[in-house]
């Protein structure tokens, strides 16, 4: 199996575009961008992105594989869908951003900062245990994501809110012991397993095709 990270795309040669089209959800839309910049101007988090969506699309077409996949941009997307409703070419920009993030993570290119990729992983790990999100554990996991010291500080800062939630029964301290879950856990795991199989088959197919 060839490692996709070992192929070096040429400038403006379209190799990386083809890789994105094959591997990224809705990636076939990238070539339809007309570089108007409406998405870039619409993004509420625009100032915090490495590259706005318009630029990401141009970079894909220019073959800037490393810069795109390791950029923080698509991890900054909050799924507000502003860009998507405004795009005159009707590109599903939000979905493409998520697709790019997923692909980058899968091939080990996702950046370590910001915390979004790590938090996303923690969310997934938390969810797949019982089929329901354990909010107490997820919240604590987020507090301590950058180490014990920062975790304790954040927890102290948030304690009033936490106590309030306990008082109003919005959160149960017993969730720490495992928490509640869905009924058919075996069925749930089987479903995830099947989805993973489908996904892996798709990836394997693309690797055989060499894209």
């Amino acid at each position: 199996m060839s490692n996709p990270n070992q192929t070096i795309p040429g400038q403006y040669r379209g190799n990386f575009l083809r890789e994105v089209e094959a591997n990224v959800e809705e990636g076939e839309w990238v070539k339809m961008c007309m570089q108007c910049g409406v998405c870039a101007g619409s993004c509420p988090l625009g100032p915090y992105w490495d590259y706005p969506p318009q630029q990401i699309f141009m970079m894909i077409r220019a073959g800037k594989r490393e810069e795109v996949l390791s950029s923080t941009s698509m991890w900054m997307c909050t799924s507000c869908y502003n860009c998507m409703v405004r795009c005159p070419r009707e590109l599903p920009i939000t979905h493409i951003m998520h697709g790019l993030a997923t692909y980058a993570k899968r091939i080990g290119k996702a950046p370590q900062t910001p915390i979004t990729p790590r938090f996303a992983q923690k969310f997934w790990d938390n969810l797949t245990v019982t089929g329901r999100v354990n909010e107490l554990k997820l919240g604590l996991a987020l507090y301590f994501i950058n180490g014990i010291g920062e975790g304790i500080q954040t927890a102290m800062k948030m304690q009033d809110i936490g106590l309030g939630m306990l008082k109003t029964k919005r959160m149960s301290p017993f969730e720490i012991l495992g928490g509640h879950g869905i009924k058919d856990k075996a069925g749930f795991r089987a479903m995830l397993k099947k989805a993973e199989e489908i996904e892996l088959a798709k990836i394997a197919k693309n690797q055989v095709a060499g894209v």
Partner: protein
Amino acid sequence: MADIIKIGAYLCKGCGLGERLNIGALENAAKRAGKASVVRSHGFLCNQEGVELIKADIEKEGVTRVVIAACSRRAKTEAFRFDEVAVSRANLREGVIWIRPDTKEAKETTQEMAEDYVRMACAEVRRMTLPTANPKAALNRRILVVGGGISGMTAALEASQAGYGVTIVEKTDRLGGWAGRLYKRVADRYPFADPADTGVADMVKAIQSDAKITVHLNALVSRTSGAPGRFEVEITSGGAATNETFGSIIQASGFTRYDLANLPEMGGGTLKDVVDQAGLEELALAAAGGPIKRPSDGREVRSVIFVQCAGQRSEKPGHLPYCSGFCCTTSIKQAMYFKDRNPEIDTVVLFSDLRTPGAGGEDFYRNGQRKGVTFAKGSVRAVVQGEAGPVVQFQDEILNDSVSMPVDLVVLATGQVANAGVNIENAPESAESVQKVSILNLTYRQGPDVPQLKHGFSDSHFICFPYETRRTGIYTAGPVRRPMDIAQAMEDATGATLKAIQTLENAGLGRAAHPRVGDLSFPTFRREGCTQCKRCTVECPFGAIDEDEQRYPQFNEARCRRCGTCMGACPVRVISFENYSVETVGQQVKSLEIPDEFSGKPRVLIFACENDAYPALDMAAQNRLEYSAYVRVIPVRCLGSVNTIWLNDALNNGYDGVMLMGCQKGENYQCHFVKGSEMAYYRMSKIGDTLKGMNLDTERVTTYEVAITDIHRIPKLINDYIAMIEKIGPSPFKGF
């Protein structure tokens, strides 16, 4: 009958005129000052009864001149049309009651205004005669088409289908022009997905089998004389000349390829693998559906870059400052040549602004993207020779990246250079410094080709009359007029053909084609008064006036557009129309009673262009916008027809000022007669010294550019002017 002057004045009391004005006093004004033999008023003049009243007087009373004192001359034109008598209109509705407040204080000045307009109309109609058609009228239902490209062929087929004979003169050895040298054309049908057949072969076939179309190949127009309806044209082919006559001419002389040698920094003319779009068409035709090979070594092209705006939209010397409009879609089409054959070929289009005009343009662009053409906003710094071919050095404007990209082939999207012949008026601009050969070889006094406006394209009234050149009966179509693609050129040629038909039919009836369609009047001059100064022959915007052997002006009525610029130019005032002359206006100017300097009632005369300023005044009235009662408006055909003697008359008669309202002049002119308003401005700029010599302030004669949309501006201009006049005081010429 025309010699007997019997004026009938008809006053309308409808639309509130009867309530606002003292009709009896107006009747008196028409009778006494206006010397009208018959004076009648009616409560509803434009209805059938009112019109019948006038018709009965014409028949039974022998009225030969009619004054309608009612609404604007632009209203009720059908009702008040009497073909057998001269008609003048006193504008009491839009010109008086609608622009004046209905108050006790205003009543006196409003009534004065109305009475003056009645006097003016009577004075005008006294000097008007009924125009008769051009005696030299000739009908010729054959059209000359110069140029056998897509525009010329379209024009020929359209004219033939409409029943007119056509002669095509083509300088090369085949029909088709540039379109005939294309591999394919840009898609012109939904879904605008693929390059399409040019259709040239079918058109050539249709022309060859059309009995009404004659084609001269390898031929040139070596001489053109005459006028619409009677153009005499000498066609030279292989040293032999033939003469033919035509009713009108369509000049579809197209464009010339921009010289690549002007772009050495992009490898133009120096690198073999740098071609222009026409060059790529040659390669595609040679490939005939197979892989396109590059010129240097015949290797199949695997990567290609299209550089948009090459030598265009640039102020650099030798570059074209304009956008040619067709090149972006052409590059998309050419990129598809590669992609349709092999999607693996890298095609990059470097644009600064991708412009894809036309209904299908955007769809075609999308289809290019769908096929995998890469579009990048970039500016090329240089194209140099690399190891294996050209290397394009460019700046990616989105990524702000400096890129150096080796490719097999570079296509420069260069622009269209108009083939409009000799520039007869303006000094040629640097980009078009190439020696031009005349296309029509007109024997007109003003030069051998149609005048140009900018960048070497032929002049035409962009908004109102796009096909009209400044030579009546000669229409330009296609890229000679402005840069365009095949679809636009075909539409253009169809439009020009319709105009060519219209003009030759009108010429057959001896009347004007445009903009005064159907006008029978034409200018004549009093030979014994003429000093042969040639101002009329020089200033006519349409080259209608030649000189005869004795150097007198020779009017070609069918070329004339009836603007009267010649009349305004004539220093000895010998040029006139039957129904519009120095006298018809001059007597209006003199017909008023000017209040003395102690009355506090200044008088200002307005000459308003009837195409823009006068309608604007009418519309201001329709909006009930008020303006001063001290002005008297005289509509003129064009500000260019204003003779300075009218200003002289006005100032000598004690008017306090004269306002001239014409259309926008210059490069973005709005003047219906192209140069009329410009001539007026020029003339008025020269009278400052004369005014000073008369001891008058120069502000007493002021020229304004007024557009038809200046509805709210125009009352303000008038009121400001009156305020200014009140400030500088009454004219010293009052009371003499």
